[in-house]
C-alpha cells in the first residue's frame, strides 16, 4: 500500500515527465512568481494549467455545440448545451424577475459549466480538478459575493444595506455574519467536496497493491469514481443555484 504522497508523485505525469511544473526537494509545488505593480504574487502552476485545460475543453465543446446550430432539430452537443441553458435559465426566472435575471444568466451559466467540467476533470488519472484548490473555490465564491452586492446596490441603491438592520437594529452582528458566511460556505462546500474526492481517489489508487486488489481497492475505486461524477454534477448545481438564490434574495422587494 502506497502513501498518498507516493501516489501523487507517481501520478504527476505532467510535472515530472513533461515538466509543466517543477517540484522542490520536499515534493512541494514550485510556484510561479509574478511581480505585478510591486506586489509579488505566487501562482500555482498545476491549478492554472488545469484551469486553462478546462477552459479549452469548454470552449471546444461550445464551439462544436454551436456550430451548425439547428433551429428545428438540435443535434447531440447542441442538445446538451440547450439543456444546461434552459435548466439554469429556468432556475433564474423562477427565483427572480426574468428581466433582471437575463444579465445574470451568462455568469451563473458559466459558473455551472466551469465548475462541472473542473470537477469531472479531476476524475481522470494524472489530472486534478481546479476546484480542488481552495484558491479556485474562493475565487468563484468571491465573484458571487461581489455579484450579490453589485445587484443589491444596482436595484436598491444604498438602501440595500438596510437589510443588515432588519428586523431590529441589534440584529446587525447576525446579519453581518450571514452576509459573509454565505460566500464562505459556498467556497468551503465546493472545495471540501472535490478535494476530499480527489484524496479518496488517490487513496484507493494507493491500495492497488497485493491483496487490496482483490478485496476492495479496485472495486471501491470504481464505485467512488461513479459517485464522484454524481458529486461533481451536484456540487456544480448547488453552487450555481445557491448563487442565484443569494442574488435573488438581495434584489427581492420586501414588504
Amino acid at each position: 500500500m502506497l502513501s498518498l504522497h507516493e501516489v501523487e508523485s507517481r501520478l504527476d505525469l505532467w510535472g515530472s515527465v513533461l515538466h509543466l511544473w517543477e517540484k522542490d526537494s520536499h515534493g512541494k509545488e514550485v510556484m510561479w512568481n509574478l511581480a505585478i505593480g510591486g506586489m509579488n504574487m505566487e501562482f500555482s502552476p498545476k491549478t492554472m494549467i488545469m484551469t486553462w485545460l478546462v477552459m479549452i475543453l469548454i470552449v471546444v465543446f461550445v464551439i462544436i455545440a454551436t456550430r451548425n446550430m439547428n433551429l428545428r432539430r438540435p443535434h447531440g452537443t447542441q442538445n446538451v448545451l440547450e439543456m444546461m441553458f434552459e435548466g439554469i435559465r429556468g432556475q433564474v426566472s423562477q427565483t427572480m424577475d426574468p428581466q433582471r435575471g437575463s444579465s445574470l444568466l451568462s455568469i451563473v451559466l458559466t459558473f455551472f459549466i466551469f465548475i462541472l467540467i473542473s470537477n469531472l476533470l479531476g476524475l481522470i488519472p494524472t489530472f486534478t480538478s481546479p476546484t480542488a484548490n481552495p484558491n479556485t473555490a474562493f475565487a468563484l465564491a468571491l465573484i458571487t459575493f461581489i455579484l450579490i452586492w453589485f445587484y443589491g446596490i444596482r436595484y436598491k441603491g444604498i438602501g440595500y444595506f438596510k437589510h443588515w438592520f432588519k428586523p431590529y437594529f441589534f440584529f446587525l452582528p447576525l446579519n453581518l455574519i450571514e452576509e459573509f458566511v454565505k460566500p464562505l460556505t459556498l467556497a468551503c462546500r465546493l472545495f471540501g467536496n472535490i478535494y476530499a474526492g480527489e484524496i479518496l481517489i488517490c487513496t484507493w489508487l494507493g491500495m492497488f497493491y497485493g491483496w487490496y486488489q482483490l478485496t476492495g481497492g479496485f472495486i471501491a475505486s470504481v464505485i467512488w469514481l461513479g459517485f464522484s461524477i454524481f458529486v461533481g454534477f451536484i456540487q456544480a448545481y448547488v453552487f450555481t443555484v445557491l448563487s442565484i438564490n443569494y442574488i435573488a434574495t438581495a434584489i427581492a422587494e420586501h414588504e
Partner: protein
Amino acid sequence: MENFPNGTLIGQIINFLILLFLLKKFAFKPLGKLLSDRQQLIADSITTAEQERQQAEQIKAEYEAEMQRTREMAQEIIQKATKAGEEQAAEIIESAKNEAKRLKDAALVEIKHEKEKAVAEMRDEAATLAILVAGKIINQQIDEDIQHKMVKDFVKEAGELLC
C-alpha cells in the same frame, strides 16, 4: 492549505472572466438567439394553426349552411311535386266521374228513347190486333162465351207482349 490564499485566486478570477467573455460571445448569445427564434417559430406555428382551424371551421359552417339550403330546396321540390300529383290525381278522378255520369245519362236517355219506341210499336201492334179481333168478331157469329174468351185471350196476349 499552505498555498492559500495566493495569486492563484486572482488568476482564477481573471480566468473566469475570460471564460465568461468567450462563452458569452461564442455560446450564449447565439444560443439565446436560437432559443428565442425557436420560441417565435413555435408561437407562429400555433398562431397559424389557430388561424387555419378557424378558416376550416368557417368553411365547414358555410358548407353545412349550403347543405341545409339544398336539403330545404329538395324538400320543397318534393312537396310541390307531391301536391301537383295529388291535384292531378284528383282532377283525373273528377273527370272520370264526370265521364261516367255522362255515359250513364246517355245510356238512360237511350233506354228511355228505346222504351218509348217499344211502347209506340206495341201500340201499333195492339191497334192491329184490335182491328184483327174486331174483324174476327164481325166476321163470326159469336156467343157471349166465345166473345168473353176471345177478349180474355186478347188481354193475355197483349199482356205478354207488353211485359
